[in-house]
C-alpha cells in the first residue's frame, strides 16, 4: 500500500536578510497508514518545518510532498485550506485555542469552515469533548481550563472533521509529566482504536521510543541515518 505521506528531497529555505536559512535541506521520508511516527531532533533541526509542510500551513521551496497521493506543491491556497480542514488535524504545543470561545465553540470551529450545520456541529463537539473526558466543560473558556484540559480540547478540535492524519507538534511540551502521559495515551488510543495515522514532533527521545512505532531524527534540516541515531 502506498504511504500516506511521502516526501522526496524536500527543501524549505528562508531568506533572512542577506543569508539563506536551510530549514529543510533534502528530506525524504514516508509515513505508512496506521503508523505512529516520532519526528525527533533538537530545536532548529527542521522537524516543525517538516510538520508544517505536511499540514499545508507552509509551502516547500523544492522537492516533492504527497499526502494521500495529492501533491501539495500543486495546490492553490484554497485547496490547501481544504487540506487543513479535511485531511489533517493539527495539535500544537501551545494549544492554539481561541481564548474568547468556549471549549465547544473551539471544537466546532473546523466544522464551521467545513459548512457543517449548527445543530450537527454542536452535537459532534459535545460528543468529542465527552470522549476526551471533558463532559460538562463545554462552556468553559480556555483560560478556565488546565493545560491538560486545553490540550484535550485541541485534540477534540483536530478530530472534528474526522481526518485520517493527526499532526502533533510537541503536544506535551507545555505539560507536566503526568498530564503528558495522559495526552500521549490518548493519542496512542486514537492510533490503535480509530486507526489514525499520527506524526508527532518531539525533542524527547524517551517519549518517542515509548509511544511511537518508529522515530525519524532530523539534524540541520536533514534526516540522520538509522544507524547513527
Amino acid at each position, binding site marked *: 500500500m502506498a504511504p500516506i505521506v511521502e516526501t522526496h528531497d524536500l527543501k524549505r529555505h528562508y531568506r533572512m536578510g542577506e543569508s539563506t536559512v536551510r530549514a529543510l535541506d533534502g528530506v525524504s521520508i514516508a509515513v505508512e497508514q496506521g503508523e505512529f511516527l516520532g519526528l525527533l531532533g533538537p530545536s532548529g533541526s527542521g522537524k516543525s518545518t517538516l510538520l508544517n509542510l505536511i499540514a499545508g500551513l507552509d509551502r516547500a521551496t523544492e522537492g516533492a510532498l504527497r499526502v494521500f497521493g495529492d501533491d501539495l506543491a500543486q495546490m492553490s491556497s484554497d485547496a490547501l485550506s481544504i487540506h487543513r480542514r479535511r485531511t489533517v488535524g493539527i495539535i500544537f504545543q501551545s494549544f492554539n485555542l*481561541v481564548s474568547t470561545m468556549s471549549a465547544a465553540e473551539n471544537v466546532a*470551529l473546523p466544522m464551521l469552515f467545513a459548512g457543517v450545520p*449548527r445543530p450537527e456541529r454542536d452535537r459532534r463537539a459535545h460528543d468529542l469533548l465527552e470522549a476526551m473526558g471533558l463532559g460538562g466543560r463545554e462552556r468553559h473558556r480556555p483560560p478556565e481550563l488546565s493545560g491538560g484540559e486545553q490540550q484535550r480540547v485541541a485534540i477534540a478540535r483536530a478530530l472534528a472533521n474526522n481526518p485520517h492524519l493527526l499532526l502533533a507538534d510537541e503536544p506535551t511540551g507545555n505539560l507536566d509529566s503526568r498530564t503528558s502521559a495522559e495526552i500521549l495515551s490518548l493519542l496512542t488510543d486514537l492510533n490503535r482504536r480509530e486507526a489514525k495515522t499520527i506524526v508527532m514532533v518531539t525533542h524527547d527521545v524517551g517519549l518517542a521510543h515509548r509511544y511511537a512505532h518508529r522515530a525519524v531524527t532530523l539534524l540541520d534540516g536533514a534526516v540522520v541515518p538509522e544507524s547513527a541515531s
Partner: protein
Amino acid sequence: MTLGDAVDLALRNLNQAKLRTALTVLGVSIGIASLAGMVSLGLGLQDQFVGRFMKSGMFDAITVMSPQDRPGIMAGGMRGLGAGPRGVARSRLDDDALRKFGALRRVKEVYPNLRVPVELKYQQVTQSYVATGVPMSARSEGAFQTFAYGGFFDNESDNTCLLSLDVAKELEERNPMTLIGKQMTLTRMASSDEARYTVVGIIEREPGPPGLPGATYSAVMIPLAKMREMSAEGRRSYGQATVKVDAPQFTQDVENQIKDMGFMAFSLNDALTGAKRAFMILDIVLTLIGSIALAVSSLGIVNTMVMSILERTREIGIMKAVGGSDGDIRRIFLVEASVIGGIGGIAGVVLGWAIGRAINFGANVYVRSQGGPTGNLFSLPLWLVAVAIAFAFIVSLIAGSYPASRAARLDPIQALRHD
C-alpha cells in the same frame, strides 16, 4: 462557511470590543446623519420654494396675447418672447381661438384675462380701481392661497368680490376686517350700469409682480363670469388670455403649439428650469459637504478594522490552521465592517432626522415670530432613508475591504507565532 455563521462570528467579535465598536458606529452614524441631513435640507428647501412656485399657478400657465394687442415692451425684436412665426396670419384672440386652445392636449383650462377700470362706491367714498375677473379654479392658487380676512368666492353666480388689503385699508383704515360682508357698488368706467357686490375676502399680497402669467390679482376681484357680463358689450376679441396646462412639464409644448397658431405666448417655464438647475447645484454642494463627514468616518472603520486584525492575528492564524480559507477570513471581516456600517447607517438616519426636526422647530419658531409662513426645511422621503442606509453599508464594505484582505493574506505560521 455560511453567511449566517460569518454574521455570528462578526457579532461575537464586535461584542468583544464594545467601546471600540460603539465609537466606530457613532462615527459612521454622524457621517450618515450629516449626509442624509444635508440632502434632506436640499430637498426640503426645493420642496418649499419650487412647491410654492408651482402652487402659485405661474408655471402651469401660459399668457396668450393677440399680436395686434401686444404691449410696447413686447413689440419689435422680442421674437423670443413669443411672436408667432413669420408668415403666419395674424390671429384674433376671440372665443373661437379660446375654444381651439381648450382642445389642445394637456390643456386644463382657458380663460380670458379681463381687466376693467371701475368706480367703487362705498358709503361716502368713491374711488377708481382696476377690477379683474378671477376663475373659480384660482381658489388656493397664487395670491388666493392665503387670505388676510374672509375667503374665496363660494360660487360664480353671486355678486361677491375680493379686495386687496391696500384697497381695504383705503376704505376702512382702522379695521379693514369689518368690510367683510359689506356691500359696495361697482360701476364700469364710462358706463352707467351699476351693480352691488358683497365683500367676501381680503388678500394681503401677491407672490409675484403683477402681469405674470395667470396672475389675476388686482385691487378689486370679482368672479370671472360676472366680469364677462360686465365687459361683454361690444367685445369681439380679448387682449389677453390665460391657458392652464395639467402640469408644468407640458407648458413649453402647449406654448409652442399656440405660437404656431399665430399668437404671442409666454410662460415662466424657463425661469422654473433655471430654479431647478440652481437647486440641483445646491443639492450637489450640500451632498459634498455631507460626504466629508462620511469619508472621515469611513477612515474610522478602516482604523477599527486594522486594530481589530492586529489584536486578533493569532486567532486568524488558528482559524487558518483549522481550515479557514482566505475567502472565509475576508468574509468574516467584511461582514464585521458591514455590520458596523449597517447599524451606523440606521442610527445615522435616526440622528439626522432628529437634528433636522430640531432645527426645523427652531427655524419655525423664528419664522413665526417674524410673521412668515412655516414649513418643513428638511424633507426625508423613504427613498432617502433607504439610500442612506445602503450607502453606509457600501461605504463600510469599501472601507473594510483593505483590512479584510490584509487579514486574509496573513501567513498562518507567522500569525500563530504572534502573541
